[in-house]
């Protein structure tokens, strides 16, 4: 009995997100979705929370998963499930921010100003607190590029999620990291 359970849990553990999503689409068995939620729920919520506030993040998180549930049969394994759900979440979030009139399309030009405004963060003693505040103060597009990369998504996937060119993603990442390192006084070679 315990052997069977351990084999089952091992198989479940090794099953890819994409395979689980395809199975969920075919069977509508909520157990597959629950595994996906347990694997990616916190990542997605953290991304949304970093880009908004707790209320909006909770709403968008739920709305995103509901879109996954409602469109479960249309999922095809063309990319990773993680990039698919983050893309849904991002567009849902931006729609909501537009509705709330909180969406401002800020591109790279603002990076210098934001770096200046973030300089106050350095006053914090603890590095983690400095990081949290610095991350929160990054421009929306830089922060999302940074978070998506930290979540293990590749440049190509980030470009698809954010509906932009790969070169633009690279620029946003470079500015985001430069800002963070500057504020945290992390100086690398070549800086």
């Amino acid at each position, binding site marked *: 009995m315990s052997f069977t359970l351990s084999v089952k849990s091992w198989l479940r553990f090794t099953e890819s997100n994409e395979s689980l999503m395809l199975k969920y689409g075919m069977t*509508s068995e909520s157990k597959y979705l629950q595994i996906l939620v347990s694997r990616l729920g*916190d990542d997605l*919520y953290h991304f949304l929370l970093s880009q908004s506030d707790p209320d909006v993040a909770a709403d968008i998180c739920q709305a995103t*998963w509901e879109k996954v*549930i409602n469109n479960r049969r249309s999922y095809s394994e063309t990319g990773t499930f993680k990039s698919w759900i983050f893309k849904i979440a991002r567009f849902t979030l931006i729609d909501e921010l537009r509705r709330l009139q909180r969406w401002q399309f800020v591109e790279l030009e603002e990076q210098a100003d934001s770096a200046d405004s973030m300089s106050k963060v350095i006053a914090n003693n603890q590095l*983690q607190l400095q*990081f949290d505040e610095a991350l929160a103060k990054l421009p929306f597009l830089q922060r999302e590029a940074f978070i998506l990369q930290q979540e293990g998504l590749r440049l190509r996937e980030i470009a698809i999620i954010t509906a932009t060119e790969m070169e633009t993603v690279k620029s946003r990442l470079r500015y985001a*990291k430069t800002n963070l390192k500057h504020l945290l006084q992390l100086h*690398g070679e070549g800086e």
Partner: protein
Amino acid sequence: MTDKHSEQVLQDLYKQHKKTVSMPSSVRDNIVHHAKSKKPSMWRWFNWQSGFAVFAVVTLYGFVKNNPQYHERPSYSVSQTINEQNQNVFYHDVKLITEDQRKRAVEINKNAHYDAFLASLQQLKNRKNLAGTVIADNNKLAIEVCDIGVIHVSEQIMKQLGLRQPISSHDLGQPIMLVVDNRGIITNIVRGGSKQACS
């Protein structure tokens, strides 16, 4: 501090930042609830075991439906007429679908003729053992039972009773005993007995 090191620090700080955040349980519950509500009720209980069970039941039902031997019982009937001697004549017959049905309890095809035969039985003291004599009636061998009349027993009933010798193998005037159950069904035919002389 090298560039690689600063990247590593950022990663560590990010991971630490994430640790403090988890999806609210209410959101998680709502998602799971939504997923369950979206599952079509037909699929809710559908898995390979239930699918196999449904398939087996449907197959069995189709098999039984197309094989009357599994749901039909032998039909026992009595028809009545009057012969040239103004005697009541009862024809006992049983309709078998297959040979296997012999083992099954018969189903009586109740009608006025059958009731007439039962009414005749009611007049007898011994309603279960009908003593009679083999006679010829309408060019066929039959059994004459006093106070009832003439009884024709079909070959099917002989088979049903497992009697190898047909009525035609009996001799005219031979005493014979019909064993009848409470429902008026002939359950055995026994040679011998006292010779009956009907008045």
